[in-house]
């Protein structure tokens, strides 16, 4: 039981990272139906900007977090304007390939600027170990968990309660109708990229602190996992991404805890395929009727 709870704690902290990245995937997909393969790399960019703001500018954790999120959001806006906006009208696979191109570009430009060496993240948070009923909880895990939940709460607030959130939801349902109602669709899409990128950046800096290292290729695997998480929960649905992220994190830790670390990814993918076959639109997705 104690072992089980310990795995639960570990699973929730890694799951909250996946959930943060998955939110960006799901928001962008919900609005322009693009699988943004470069999203995992925004997380990597976030980790690097976080590293620079902590080491070069000596910012404390929360200031670093906020400045990282703002800067990454700006980069996200830039990428959207340059690479994705011209492709709004073309086929989705062309947009997908562009996203792959952006992903390659970000990985290589970062390794060009920063060098391919692995940087060590300074410990900006004091690392205390709390023992509650025999379960070891790291203070960093706690920060990751609390920050992620706070950000998700904030996002939910923006999407559900504000005017811009309403605009986002309307664009997701029907772009043309939203435009007719006076919503500035381009604006909303750009903002979606900005929010998604800043969430990924938050995940990046949190992981940087937790695992102590950053490298240019660090975004690829978590990006893929987060994407799986988004599909798992129902892509395009914000609570779905959170549920998906936590589920993937938990499945992964339990499989490596009780089974084999080697097969943890395989189990994640098998569950994904089973879910897709049984309920193609994901856990929270609504099945659309096929119309002729």
């Amino acid at each position, binding site marked *: 039981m104690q072992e089980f709870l310990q795995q639960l704690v570990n699973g929730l902290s890694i799951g909250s990272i996946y959930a943060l990245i998955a939110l960006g995937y799901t928001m962008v997909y919900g609005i322009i139906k693009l699988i943004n393969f470069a999203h995992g790399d925004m997380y990597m960019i976030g980790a690097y900007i976080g590293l620079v703001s902590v080491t070069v500018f000596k910012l404390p954790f929360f200031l670093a977090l906020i400045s990282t999120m703002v800067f990454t959001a700006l980069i996200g806006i830039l990428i959207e304007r340059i690479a994705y906006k011209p492709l709004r009208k073309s086929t989705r696979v062309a947009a997908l*390939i562009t996203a792959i191109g952006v992903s390659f570009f970000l990985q290589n430009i970062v390794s060009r600027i920063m060098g391919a060496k692995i940087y060590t993240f300074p410990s900006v948070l004091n690392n205390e170990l709390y023992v509650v009923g025999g379960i070891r909880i790291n203070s960093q895990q706690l920060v990751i968990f609390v920050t992620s939940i706070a950000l998700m709460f904030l996002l939910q607030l923006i999407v559900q309660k504000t005017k811009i959130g309403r605009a986002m939801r309307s664009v997701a349902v029907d772009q043309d109708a939203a435009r007719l109602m006076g919503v500035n669709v381009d604006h909303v899409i750009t903002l979606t990229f900005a929010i998604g990128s800043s969430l990924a950046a938050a995940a990046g800096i949190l992981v940087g602190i937790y695992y102590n290292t950053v490298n240019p290729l660090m975004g690829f695997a978590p990006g893929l996992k987060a994407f799986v998480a988004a599909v798992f929960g129902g892509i395009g649905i914000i609570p779905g991404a959170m549920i998906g992220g936590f589920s993937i994190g938990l499945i992964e830790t339990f499989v490596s805890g009780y089974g084999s670390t080697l097969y943890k990814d395989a189990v994640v993918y098998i569950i994904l395929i089973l879910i897709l076959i049984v309920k193609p639109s994901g856990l929270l997705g609504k099945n659309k009727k096929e119309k002729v």
Partner: protein
Amino acid sequence: MKQTLLNKKNLTWLAIAIVIFVVVQLLIDARIISPYYRVTLFWICIFAILGVSLNIIIGVTGQFSLGHAGFMSIGAYSAAVLLKMMPDYTGLAIGIGVGLVISFVVSFIVAMPTLRLKGDYLAIATLGVGEIIRIIILNMTITNGASGISNIPFLVNWPMMFVFTVLAIALSANFKNSAIGRACISIKEDEIASEAMGINTTKYKVTAFVFGALLASIAGALYATSYYVIKPETFGITNSINILVIVVFGGMGSLTGSVVAAIVLGIINIILQPLAELRMIIYALALIGIMIFRPQGLLGTYEASISSLFDFKSHFKRFTKAGKEKA
């Protein structure tokens, strides 16, 4: 509509193939294509096969697959394991055979349930399948885990590579132009309409998927014997994406496009080789640029055909275009 095998069209294609073969062979003999460039030559051939086979699935049938490297790895590992036991052409032949059988079984099992999915969901499911194949290979003892299989006998030469490539392209072209291929195209255009016309969509989707997987498995075997070393990480999602890039870059649905794209990317690779790190940056920018300015790919849906070569007076423009591609 009686068609003989040795009609004017096929003979012309054969002649073109022989000319390309002889020219390249002469270039190899004259040391203009050094062993260093031969690596790229083989890369082009292997990725032309992969591109064409994935194009049958994505471009012709409209089923988005992101797990193609998985089937390539099945072929590569089957050939490598067999070649380690029997380092000769018999070993290679048996290896290719074993790879084909395994690929057939796996692709069939995968295709039956997953091809009911549509669009992006199918892409994710196949991505998952590709990763599962990679993880299984990573954990098997016969495949030597993460360190992979090294010192695979180098048995492939230009004539053999060329014959395989031409056969794969010819098979795919025939597939596309056959009744099955037309059914597949109708599925891509409108699945519901083609179902209403009495086409068994599941059957044709599975056929196209298995066909593509089998060709990928052969390409994998050729890869194993031309590169000495194979590792599970070679066949990850990155490789599936590389193949996808060839398909989209050349033009979805255009087999000619896939071949041209493989050649172009191979040559770009050679030209950018000295730039080391900058190479990937330029490659990425080129990818983005091409998609922005030519989203339908280099050739769109255009196919090189002999009939347009014959009445070239009326199609003079097309002729010059096709002529350039063949050169």
